[in-house]
């Protein structure tokens, strides 16, 4: 016998999950993420490994090092190394379209006249978005596990599994980074009442502005202090801490060692909490046409 929890929040979450599950744009975003993650996590390194061309994906690694990074033992590293760059950007897009499109289509208006309060409705939407983020990361882990096993098999390597703790730590850290970017997109979509401006501004910020500010920060102390609390710095530093980038220099864009692991964890968590509060306050008070 299963007990079904039925309250306005679970109803809102179930409703939101139904429409997200059937939304082609969500699956396109997931597909792009999977394709990019596989490409940069395994395809390019494997091509470099097979062809002996170490100039691109290898970042100067030896062929032996490249192979090690594609085996199951390296799953905790490979899982998160794409998150600061395109993973975060795609999560931002996902969050922005989930929140923003409802204003253009008038669906928030319809949803807000169904019964649950606005905080409950939007809370359900955020829970559904979080479930989607967890699902995307879990799907990625399953795919990466499969690909790493194939690589091990093809290259006749012994299969060594990573420590469960390391994998869990990687999954949790990766989730926080993706969640932060998804919530940032959701917030921008809510503020802009549409997806286009939110996606545009978010991507320019994530991919350009933060990198420029970090460049300026190297010259100006006050700017550097600001860049240390920006989401890209926090997310990149959290991933950097997870793969111990200070001990193993990694040239992957977006992976940083600006903040310590603890500082990065606190900053990313603070963004997640702060963005949720901001969205709830915004939606609770505003007029909806």
């Amino acid at each position, binding site marked *: 016998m299963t007990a079904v929890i*039925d309250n*306005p929040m679970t*109803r*809102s979450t*179930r*409703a939101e999950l*139904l*429409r997200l599950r*059937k*939304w*082609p*744009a969500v699956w396109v975003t997931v597909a792009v993420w999977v394709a990019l993650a596989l490409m940069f996590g395994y395809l390019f390194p494997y091509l470099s490994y097979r062809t002996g061309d170490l100039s691109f994906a290898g970042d100067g690694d030896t062929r032996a090092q490249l192979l090690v990074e594609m085996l199951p033992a390296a799953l905790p590293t490979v899982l998160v190394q794409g998150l600061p760059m395109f993973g975060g950007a795609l999560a931002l897009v996902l969050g922005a379209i989930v929140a923003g499109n409802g204003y253009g*289509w*008038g*669906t*928030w*208006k*319809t*949803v*807000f*006249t*169904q*019964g*649950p*309060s606005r905080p*409950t*409705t939007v809370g359900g939407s955020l829970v559904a978005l979080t479930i989607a983020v967890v699902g995307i990361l879990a799907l990625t882990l399953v795919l990466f596990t499969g690909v790493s096993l194939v690589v091990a098999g093809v290259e006749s390597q012994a299969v060594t599994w990573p420590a469960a703790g390391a994998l869990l730590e990687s999954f949790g850290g990766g989730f926080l980074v993706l969640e932060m970017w998804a919530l940032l997109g959701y917030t921008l979509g809510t503020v802009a009442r549409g997806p286009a401006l939110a996606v545009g501004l978010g991507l320019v910020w994530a991919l350009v502005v933060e990198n420029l500010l970090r460049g300026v920060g190297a010259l100006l102390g006050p700017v550097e202090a600001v860049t240390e609390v920006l989401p890209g710095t926090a997310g990149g530093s959290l991933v950097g801490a997870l793969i111990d980038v200070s001990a193993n220099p990694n040239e992957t864009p977006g992976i940083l060692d600006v903040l310590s692991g603890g500082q990065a964890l606190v900053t990313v968590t603070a963004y997640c909490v702060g963005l949720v509060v901001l969205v709830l306050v915004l939606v609770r008070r505003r*007029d*909806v*046409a």
Partner: protein
Amino acid sequence: MDDLVVQTDGLTKRYGERLAVDSVSMTVRRGEVYGFLGPNGAGKTTTLRMMLGLIRPTAGTASVLGRPAGRPDVIARVGALVEGPGFFPYLSGRDNLRTMARYRGLGDDAVDAALARVDLTDRAGDRFKAYSLGMKQRLGVASALMGEPELIVLDEPTNGLDPAGMADMRALVVSLARGGQTVLLSSHLLAEVQEICDRVGVINGGRLLREARVDELRGEATLRVRATPEDAAIAVAMRVAGEDAVRRTPHGLELGLPASAAPALVRDLVTAGVDVHEVSPTERSLEEVFFEMTTTAPTNAVPTEARVS
């Protein structure tokens, strides 16, 4: 007070310098079909949005089902279609309703019943974006009907409907009222409103000009008479209807008598040697009353004679 499903008191909404709704006080009674009339931009939709809690009033209050408007426990008992249907374009009609049903805690049986009620079952599997305007409108009405809400707010529900669809919608609204549900209907189609509404509120420039029963607004029925000689006809008419009830118009005489008085009047006229060319019952349509209240009649308005049966 239980009789009042909607009650607003000095409801006001201001956008910067523009006063969209100006101190509107209106009431909708349980079980009635209330027509909310006004030209474009009069403030109808803004008023409805405040009743549903979608926007906050600048001043005044609105209570719905005896509670402050916009509270979740109130909204759950209201079905609404406000300013066009807002649905997910990539979902089918059925999945859109399933999504909304989940918010309401309803099952798929409520979805199927609502689809059947607006005659959309056959196309329920099609994507919303592939629907015609009329089908989108019907889906919006279906969404408002799910769960048998006590109050149904329909903002221009016949937009985009073909004549058959309008007739269906009219029958649907009447059946809702017969079933005990209260309907608040905003519409530009005055003939529809005249036919199905018990009371109406007329709003213009953000102000509620009048709230009354439809028959009160339209006033008493009259008889139009064309007869010669006219002076003799007037004398007979004054004797039958009373001096104050006879008016000479460019189209003949207008008498303050109901249609049932026509046979006796004709007999008296003929007995008095008057030639009777035409006797026809007339009554002001809601459209005429509406235009009188809101503006002068537009040049393309249907002429009065064309509406007299």
